[in-house]
């Protein structure tokens, strides 16, 4: 079992590759199907944004754990135009891309932690889905 994966996001088939990898890794650490689907869906939203807004970027997946919890940390990064209005981007129904604008706020609700940093030329979103270790 690999603890870390690095996926280049350039075309829409990479979105599928990334979310399938996320599902596999969460399955490997014993997450149930609901959590597998939550994480795969979150990865799908974030990597699609890369293609739609930046053209290309990367998706890093890493299994992380501490004393009590285990989970997956996913980082997506691109060199696109950046999100100028982060506050609006996190509101339901806001979109600049012709979608319904549920992507980012919807994704945030699926995961344990969500961090977004963006400036022109660099956007980085980090999510984690953590669950208590079964003793």
């Amino acid at each position, binding site marked *: 079992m690999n603890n870390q994966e690095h996926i280049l996001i350039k075309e829409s088939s990479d979105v599928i590759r990334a979310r399938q990898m996320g599902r596999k890794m969460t399955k490997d650490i014993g997450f149930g199907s609901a959590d597998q*689907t939550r994480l795969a*869906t979150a990865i799908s939203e974030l990597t699609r944004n890369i293609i739609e807004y930046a053209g290309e970027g990367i998706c890093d997946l890493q299994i992380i754990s501490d004393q009590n919890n285990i989970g997956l940390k996913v980082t997506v990064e691109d060199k696109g135009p950046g999100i100028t209005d982060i506050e609006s981007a996190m509101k339901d129904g806001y979109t600049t891309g012709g979608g319904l604008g549920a992507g980012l706020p919807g994704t945030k609700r699926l995961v344990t932690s969500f961090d977004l940093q963006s400036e022109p030329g660099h956007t980085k979103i980090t999510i984690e889905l953590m669950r208590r270790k079964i003793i």
Partner: protein
Amino acid sequence: MKVPILKLKDILLTSIQIDLTDEDAIEFQNDVMQQVSRTEAKGIVIDITALDVVDSYMSRVLNDTANMVRLLGCEVVITGMQPSVALTLIEMGRELINVETSLNLDQGMEKLQQLISASDSTRAVKGGEYNE
């Protein structure tokens, strides 16, 4: 990757068996529209049992497809959504709006037949009023 659409009497039956890319999803939408129009089907069942991820994009495509098909006068039922997919859609604040869904293909076919006969009888009543 094409999603096959089968004709069964006056009903169309299609099952999405693989993860569709965004382009595949739009092609599927176009194929459904063309087949509905070409075959003059009264109803279509879209089975999504094999889809383990329905994100905001795919839910929009399914929703749009169902609404477009209904504009053509054809009834739609989406069947077989995985429980974890339903859970994720609701948590994200998405759902399939105005779309009939069923647990499985069996119940979906039954629901579709009901929708078709209901719309047939509405038409018959409207036709009657019109003649008077």
